[in-house]
């Protein structure tokens, strides 16, 4: 390719990221069209996909050479020292070009060829069928139907073609409502809870000025509310922080904050809510006087709920701070915690999870439908809707179900993956770790409910890897229309079948699908339960991880059990066989021998072989028995042992004195 000037540099040093004594490995650096490859003297390979590179930095020349620091989107950070500055400069320039493509067609997915034939590829894309998924939820139903309004992306470009709306919402209502909503993203169904008959709907913010109202939008919300016979009121959840809302109320600025008024009745209700305390006192007084509560019917169809999830810019800088803290060498425990605190990262994670918990509770406890929105309805809304559904429905806690969930709430509803992940060279202000936060929330749930998920941490890490890798077509583009225009289904491969093929690696050995206890997850979101996700943010810093893995052990035991069970069956069938042919003694001997060669004792490496085929993304839970002192930072005190004794002269109370 035209960007590559140097393809091979020898005598390159790879520095240990956390070592304070400049420990390094020497090897050869290769630059290919898709990867940067470093092979050290022990023949260990480090592959870095160009698309994974978030930033390349060339530091000031040192005596040993020119330092090149590469930060990756999967949180790998490598620090090379290239002996000659010219080589370093060439590689630096090439990587700058290669990591920032201007056109989708230059991304890896369009050249990636996994040696599948055409029909397999097409089948792969058909693996996830969202129509089937809505059918699983019981949609279309008596009150919900498929709308063809967006068949040609006429109403909303960033929505999928197939949208589900209340039966009572006809086309004029849809069109009217979409005009009232930012980017035309009108309220549509995201998840339907069959037992409670309650729905999770999603939309974008209304484009109302302070006084403007939109009757169609009001009808739309009423239709959603009516579609749920089990509850008369519904929630509208604004996932944005409240202070801003108040400042908006104060300034009465135009554009887009929530004023959703179904009717003047509701308007009154809002006023009542504003003086909530007073109303409560009144109600108390009424009850004391024996009159009871006022009839809910009169004034409560909609309840507004604000949950403070910050915007993409806050999240981006929060992650940036977090990574800065964690990248520090010789980090002290105090600096770690104060850095964790000041980055605000865990606070944001908690806010997202809290919102999802509220959503799930509204549906399970109150059987109320919930309409979720943020500004554009593709970031925070996707987080909250998908996590809410994950809490409610155990299907999404299976491997296939999780794929469906991502496909439904993230890909099809137009989370702007290409913008948020910076697939192309674009506006850096559009980049934000929204999806990473979603995965981290899921990880926190897997930690709290180790038996409730079919998949394990590696699955989440692998998805994160490929969201950024541009190796598969799933996450390219910002919405379905764009994907169709790019002809991704014809030109690229889908990630999901590859994950399914490898699913043994992603299985959680503790998964207990039968347990009824875990139908609805009720996570505890006290701050105590939030931890730093080491395996994500230090995935490639091998030395920080536990040296032995319980999960791996259980997986191996399961493997062995299966193997043994298979053998039992084989032996049983052989016994049967032998009984039928009792006369033949010669064969008997032979079969004994074959039994012997099959025995598990002779193939102890069976379960370990698999480990070696793990993708680079799976470094995280590798097994290192024992491990090495050289891996750890305390080893650097070793200098203390080898130092020759200096004649220390210290000043004590102004008098120079030999310390002995």
């Amino acid at each position, binding site marked *: 390719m035209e960007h590559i000037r140097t393809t091979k540099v020898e005598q390159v040093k790879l520095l240990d990221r956390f070592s304070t004594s400049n420990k390094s490995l020497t090897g050869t650096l290769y630059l290919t069209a898709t990867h940067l490859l470093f092979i050290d003297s022990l023949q260990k390979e480090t592959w870095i996909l160009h698309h994974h590179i978030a930033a390349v930095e060339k530091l000031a020349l040192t005596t040993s050479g020119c330092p090149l620091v590469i930060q990756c989107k999967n949180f790998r950070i490598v620090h090379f020292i290239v002996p000659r500055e010219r080589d370093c400069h060439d590689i630096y320039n090439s990587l700058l070009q290669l990591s920032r493509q201007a056109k989708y067609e230059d991304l890896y997915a369009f050249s990636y060829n996994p040696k599948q034939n055409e029909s397999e590829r097409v089948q792969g894309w058909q693996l996830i069928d969202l129509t089937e998924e809505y059918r699983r939820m019981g949609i279309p139903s008596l009150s919900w139907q498929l709308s063809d309004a967006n068949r040609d992306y006429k109403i909303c470009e960033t929505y999928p073609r197939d949208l589900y709306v209340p039966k009572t919402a006809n086309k004029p209502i849809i069109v009217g409502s979409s005009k009232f909503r930012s980017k035309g993203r009108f309220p549509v169904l995201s998840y339907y809870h069959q037992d409670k008959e309650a729905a999770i709907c999603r939309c974008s913010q209304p484009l109302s000025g302070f006084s403007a109202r939109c009757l169609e939008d009001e009808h739309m919300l009423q239709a959603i509310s009516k579609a749920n016979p089990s509850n008369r009121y519904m929630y509208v959840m604004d996932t944005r922080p409240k202070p801003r809302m108040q400042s908006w109320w104060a300034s009465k600025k135009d554009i887009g904050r929530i004023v959703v008024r179904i009717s003047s009745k509701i308007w009154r209700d809002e006023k009542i809510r504003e003086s909530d305390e007073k109303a409560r006192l009144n109600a108390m007084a009424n009850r004391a006087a024996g009159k009871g509560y006022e009839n809910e019917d009169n004034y409560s169809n909609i309840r507004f709920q604000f949950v403070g999830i910050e915007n993409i810019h806050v999240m981006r800088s929060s992650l940036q701070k977090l990574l800065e803290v964690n990248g520090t060498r010789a980090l002290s425990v105090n600096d770690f915690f104060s850095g964790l605190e000041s980055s605000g990262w865990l*606070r944001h994670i908690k806010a997202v999870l809290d919102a999802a918990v509220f959503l799930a509770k509204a549906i399970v406890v109150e059987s109320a439908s919930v309409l979720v929105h943020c500004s554009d309805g593709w970031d925070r809304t996707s987080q909250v809707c998908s996590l809410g559904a994950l809490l409610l429905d155990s299907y999404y806690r299976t491997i296939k179900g999780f794929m469906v969930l991502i496909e439904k709430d993230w890909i099809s509803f137009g989370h702007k993956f290409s913008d948020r992940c910076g697939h192309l060279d674009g506006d850096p202000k559009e980049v934000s770790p929204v999806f990473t936060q979603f995965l981290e929330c899921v990880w926190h749930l897997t930690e709290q409910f180790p038996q409730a998920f079919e998949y394990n941490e590696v699955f989440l890490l692998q998805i994160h890897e490929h969201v950024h890798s541009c190796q598969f077509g799933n996450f390219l583009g910002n919405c379905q229309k764009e994907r169709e225009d790019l002809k991704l289904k014809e030109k690229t491969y889908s990630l999901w079948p590859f994950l399914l093929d490898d699913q043994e690696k992603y299985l959680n050995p503790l998964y207990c699908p039968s347990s009824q206890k875990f139908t609805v997850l009720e996570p505890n979101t006290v701050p105590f339960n939030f931890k730093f996700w080491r395996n994500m943010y230090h995935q490639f810093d091998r030395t920080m991880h536990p040296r032995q893995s319980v999960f791996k052990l259980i997986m191996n035991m399961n493997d062995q059990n299966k193997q043994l069970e298979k053998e039992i069956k084989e032996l049983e069938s052989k016994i049967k066989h032998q009984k039928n042919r009792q006369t033949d003694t010669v064969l008997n001997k032979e079969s004994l021998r074959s039994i012997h060669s099959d025995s598990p004792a002779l193939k102890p490496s069976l379960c370990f072989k698999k480990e070696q085929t793990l993708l680079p993304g799976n470094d995280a839970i590798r097994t290192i028995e024992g491990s090495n002192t050289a891996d750890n930072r305390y080893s650097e005190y070793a200098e*203390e042992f080898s130092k020759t004794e200096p004649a220390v002269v210290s000043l004590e109370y102004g008098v120079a004195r030999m310390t002995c």
Partner: protein
Amino acid sequence: MEFSELIRTGRAEALLLPGPGQSTVRGTLCITSHHLLLSAGHGSPSDLWLLLHNVDAVEKRVAGNSGTITLKCKDLQVLQLEIEGLGETLDIASSIEALSSLESVTTSYPFFFRPQSLRLGDAEDLYPPDHFYQQVALETDAWRLSTVNRDFQVCASYPPALVVPRGIGDEVLARSAHFRQGGRFPVLSYYHSTNGTVMLRSSQPLQGANRRRCAEDEELLRAALALGGQRGLVLDTRSAQAVKQARITGGGTEAKAAYPGWKRLHRPLERGRPLQDSFVRLVEACTDPSLSMDRWLSRLDGCRWLTHVKEALTTACLVAQGMDREGVCFLVHGAEGTDATLLVTSLAQLILDPKCRTMHGFQSLLEREWIQAGHPFQQRCAHSAYAQGRPKHEAPTFLLFLDCVWQLSRQFPLSLEFGEGMLLALFEHAYASPFGTFLCNSEKERYLCEVKTKTHSLWSSLNQSKERQRFCNPIYSPNPLALWPSVEPQSLQLWAGKVSFPVPLPALSIGSALTGFLPTPNSRPFPPMDSST
């Protein structure tokens, strides 16, 4: 002394409010000389048996004709009891206060506890004093067992039998003991059989401002170094500044000129009051569910507990690495040599020696490096995190050790034969126990109180097959290598099992999913067989 004098009301109707891991119990509350019993009658399984010695703080609140007593226990559980009757509430609260603060050892519960399944003196030959020497003797004959301290004359906090270099006579030891604080002269703590290096421990030398020397002490260390290798390192668990201060009050550290071959290294470890404060603040932060994320992180940061864990682990790793990789001999000491010193020597052994990671080996390590080595359990564990009033000698050094072991078990989940339950049980028994194992401050006191003949040993109870199964790690597979843990802050975790929460914990932890449901070790592991009541 009659216990009955302290019991003002022995009986009341009460209700135990549900807490984490507890269910509501309504029934009769009984105060005996050593226990609080709340029974719904007919010996129902939800009955509450609480050892009164476990109570750390009593809070009472009265309203109308009933009252609430909150019992904050040393094992960090919190019990709330609603009691009928105003007078009863006050009487019961003051009875509990009086009985739980009794300091006499010989009237404590272990002297009355007589379980049917155990016989007194069972554990006598479990870890005999020369057990450690027998092991060393298998490897080398350069060390001998000295009985210079057989009547506790040379050192009050040492056991009667100690391992010292063969060439050193008892009179040299006695002279060396004079030169060390509390008479704790350097003794062998660990012999690393792979390369013959040794780890010694002692207390600080009484160098003083005028830099006293002691020829016998120097001879002892010279002999030890000659047996163990060429290079020696004195690891002082105090900062250089603290050593200077200690010199003013008569303490100090080994002068380089006087001990050829020995170098010095300062690795300050927290002890005493600051460590106790850290523990108290950690528990405060953990039991406050109203904290926001930011407040929680800053309180966690502010209590500095994980910093102490990191420092302790790092120092132990440093010692282990020096012995294993660099062939360096170590002498570890701080001031008294009964706290941070033992923390480092015991952790280093756990890291290096696979034998210490078995159930039996771990018990033997605790017996040798903590109990017989004279960690003053009675003083250090007199109160836990809830106690009001200024702490005197309390410090959670042993808990810090258990936390470090737990960190090892997180990073090497297959390499320790005992599970988290064992560590939790040890924590509880160190603070309040029906067994005599953790009673008193030294072997001498135990001898004087006849602890070994009149109380049962925790070890013999733990080694009963039923108990043993409960505390074993089901996925243990022996690992012959040294364990080198990561000590990065990102790799350390907060030990949740330590604190009983005001809020329910996640449904199932991985550990309990593995072992089947592990009952939370609580107040009623052993039915009391109280002979005094």
